[in-house]
């Protein structure tokens, strides 16, 4: 079961943060169809937020078709956001790790690596949106 975190300083509404964290978990495969989301009671007992906020987030997710409540049992994931299968994800993760290893042995520090990544990312997606 996933655990939610709250960032009070970011200016993002609480319920949106919950929705985004569910999206992220779905994308990363941490949540799969059939998994149960924490109950409102469990979430607020940890985060000390209004239960209605949790319910609102779950209602939004339900509207997006990602989850469905089962009365008396809880809220369950029914769809996935993962665009790739686990094998592909594993392969990409491993090639990324090799690249990092070679960048590191070439003498690049974390900030340099991040700068290269961000440049490549920006260039790629700027070109890609045509």
């Amino acid at each position, binding site marked *: 079961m996933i655990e939610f975190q*709250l960032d*009070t300083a970011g*200016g993002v509404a*609480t319920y949106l943060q919950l929705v985004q964290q569910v999206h992220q978990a779905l994308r990363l495969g941490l949540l799969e169809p059939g998994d149960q989301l924490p*109950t*409102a*009671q469990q979430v*607020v*007992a*940890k*985060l*000390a*937020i*209004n*239960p*209605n*906020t*949790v319910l609102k987030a779950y209602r939004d997710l339900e509207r997006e078709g990602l989850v469905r409540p089962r009365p008396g049992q809880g809220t369950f994931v029914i769809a996935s956001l993962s665009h790739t299968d686990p094998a592909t994800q594993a392969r990409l993760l491993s090639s990324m790790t090799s690249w990092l290893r070679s960048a590191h042995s070439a003498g690049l520090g974390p900030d340099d690596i991040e700068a290269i990544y961000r440049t490549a990312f920006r260039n790629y997606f700027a070109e890609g949106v045509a």
Partner: protein
Amino acid sequence: MTAALETSGLGKQYGQKWALHDCTLAIPEGKVVGLVGPNGAGKSTLLNLAVGLLAPTSGTIEVLGGRPSDGPSQLGRIGFVAQDTPTYEGMSVAKHLRMGAWLNPHWDSKLAERRIKQLGLDPRQKAGSLSGGQRAQLALVLALAKKPEILILDEPVASLDPLARREFLQTLMEVVAEHGVSVVLSSHLIADLERVCDYLVVLVASHVQLSGDVSALLASHYHLSGPRRDRSTLPANQEVIEESHTDKQSVFMVRTDNPIIDPAWIVKPVTLDDLVLGYMRQAREAEPHRRPDLGVLR
């Protein structure tokens, strides 16, 4: 739907001074209501009026459709925790629970004992030797175990350290999630309440300055910043709550139900903190005899 708390022209006078004046509210059920205002604004007065520890000088107050003086059944529907969470110093935790059982017809002993165990409180320990946080938790258990329909808490976390404060709110929200009780809690710090409230009442200088559903309030207030201009140049449907100017720039906080269409503005949403501070400042600058601004948004 019965209102959780409804007042009409409610006032309480001590000698020449009005601790609360001309207070009109209609707070729906099922909300966690934050009552915010500086010390001495009248928050405790309002809450004590709600539970019948004070009688109004003028106006009326109803909680869950009943008057505070209606008798024991009305008292049984409200769980109250007073400021500084008074407890009987010489009485143990267990004896406090027995008091609850004897004095409340709907007392749930199992719930009380379960919560005490969860909190790790020693039933034999005298209430006087508990820490502030533990006393607040005990007071909350006493209020909860009588199975009320509404919880009224007067500055419950004011004197608690951050951890105790967080634990108290965790317990409170868990109870709201589990039992669906309405909650009214007061504080002089909005930071205490921001996480948990979905309804807000701002009380300054004995008057209600603002009240309404939090999401509706946040959706109808904006920060506008742009080139220097006078407030009178703003459209009539935009009510100015706060303004500040430099020689070239003006920043306003406005309330409006209409969209902001003037392209000269940079529009930003307000936070709950901004909202409360803005109305508190407005109250301070208003003349003492001016009728207070009152917004009830559903």
